[in-house]
C-alpha cells in the first residue's frame, strides 16, 4: 500500500488515487506532422524505468487534482510530489 502525498490533502492511501502513467509525455503540438513511428513513440513507448520515476496521479476520491509524484519503482519509496502549477 502506497501513501501518496497529495500536494493539497497530504498523504493518503493509494486507493483514493488514480494512477496516470509516466509524466512528462507532452502531446505533440502538430500530430499530423509526425511520422507513424514518432506518433507511436508518443502513444505507446514508455521508459518504464527501474528506479527514479516521474508519474501522474489524480486524487480521484479527494480533491480531484492531477499532480506529479516521483517514486523509486524498485523500493516504492516516494521521493517527492509537485503540482502542475509548480512544475511549469
Amino acid at each position, binding site marked *: 500500500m502506497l501513501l501518496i502525498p497529495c500536494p493539497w*490533502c497530504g498523504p493518503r492511501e493509494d486507493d483514493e488515487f488514480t494512477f496516470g502513467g509516466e509524466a512528462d509525455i507532452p502531446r505533440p503540438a502538430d500530430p499530423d506532422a509526425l511520422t507513424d513511428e514518432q506518433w507511436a513513440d508518443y502513444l505507446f513507448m514508455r521508459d518504464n524505468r527501474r528506479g527514479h520515476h516521474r508519474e501522474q496521479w489524480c486524487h480521484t476520491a479527494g480533491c*480531484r487534482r492531477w499532480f506529479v509524484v516521483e517514486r523509486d519503482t524498485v523500493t516504492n519509496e516516494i521521493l517527492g510530489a509537485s503540482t502542475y502549477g509548480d512544475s511549469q
Partner: protein
Amino acid sequence: MSSPTPRRSPLGAIESVQHPPQEAQLFERPFLTQINLRLDPADSEALAAIQLVLGVQLPLTPNTTAAGQELLAAWLGPDEWLLLTEHHQPDALVTNLQAALTGHFASVVDTSAGQTVIRLSGPSALDVLARGCALDLHPSAFPPGACAQTLLARAQALLIAVDAAPTFDIIVRRSFAPYVAAWLQDSAHQFDLHFPTSDTA
C-alpha cells in the same frame, strides 16, 4: 421559495413530513442546499464578492471548513468548494452567487439533489468510521472544523468534523446513500447504534 412538490431523500425522508428526532446518534439530514462552487483562489475580487454573499470567507486551507451564521463552506479542492446550508433555497443562492461572479471565471452548480448528509455522533463515532475509513480521525489529527474527501468502505464521501462529541457529517452521492447507510448500520450495530426507524418512507 417553497416548492409545491415534496422532495424525497435517498434514504426515504419526505420533505415536510415529520423527521425522526435529531438527537439520535445516526440520522440523515435531508434536503440541505448544496452548491458546488469553482473559482480561481487568486481572484481576490471574486473571493471578496463571494464573502459578501455568503457572509463567510471561503477556506483556502485544504481540508478545512469555514462556518458562518447560516452556511458552511467546505474546501474540496484548490479551486472548488461545497456550500452547505439549510437557510437558503438552492435556486436563490445560485442566482445570487452567479450575479456576484459576473465577469469572473467561475462556476456555480446546484448539486443539492445529488447528494445527502448523514450525521453520526457520540463516543463510538470514531470506532464506527474506523471500520471503513483509512484516515486518522483522532481529534489530534482531525479536529472540529476539519473536512476530508475520502473513501468510506467502497464509496466516496466528504467527512466533516462538526464538534468534539465527536460529531461527523458524512456527505455521499445519492445513489451510494443506501449502501453507505447499510454499511454504517452494519458497523454501528456492535455499538448499538441504529438509524432511527422512520415511517415516512
